[in-house]
């Protein structure tokens, strides 16, 4: 069973297009994240949702809009794609320690490689 899954795995698109990446976790966690990993492998958080509520919003262009329809899903929609958006995007989830989780362990999905031409 896949704990954190993302679709699609690869996404190739033209500049200016709008695209979405989907993420689902079956771990029962209440917190989900989106990370961006650039070409130098640097991992940077973009957003975090706890129980469908946005709790972390790093300095990300407003062309990026996360949407959490329920606790198990966190999708990322990107408008007007730019060349600099090319990266690998990772979804992750964790159980908040205050909510009874034993650790802050974040479980990552397999990633979506976005290439903007």
């Amino acid at each position, binding site marked *: 069973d896949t704990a954190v899954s993302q679709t699609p795995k690869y996404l190739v698109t033209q500049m200016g297009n709008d695209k979405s990446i989907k993420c689902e976790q079956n771990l029962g966690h209440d917190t989900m994240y989106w990370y961006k990993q650039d070409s130098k492998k640097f*991992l940077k958080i973009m957003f975090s949702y706890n129980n469908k509520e946005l709790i972390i919003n790093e300095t990300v262009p407003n062309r990026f809009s996360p949407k959490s329809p329920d606790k198990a899903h966190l999708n990322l929609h990107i408008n007007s794609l730019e060349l600099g958006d090319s990266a690998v995007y990772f979804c992750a989830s964790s159980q908040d320690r205050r909510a009874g989780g034993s650790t802050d362990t974040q479980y990552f999905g397999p990633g979506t490689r976005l290439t903007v031409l």
Partner: protein
Amino acid sequence: QQQVKQSPQSLIVQKGGISIINCAYENTAFDYFPWYQQFPGKGPALLIAIRPDVSEKKEGRFTISFNKSAKQFSLHIMDSQPGDSATYFCAAKRGGSNYKLTFGKGTLLTVNP
């Protein structure tokens, strides 16, 4: 401002040797220090983690050494194997879902046979 500094950027070790990766942090409010391992084409996966109430944690061939006063922690991989070749990230976080996991820039480890 880079809150977690990781070194070296890359490391080459012979099979059977010891791999050592170092990290330093600035925020004294951090209370959770994980190491993640990432293979090419895969997502990062938790390898081992420590909290500041202990100075060392060992799991198999992997050990974290933690120095609270120096605000440093390191990953030691004993008897390094070619299968350990991957990118390793240290990270740090305050407790609670309102706080983000801050990653170091990663170390590419290559273990030669």
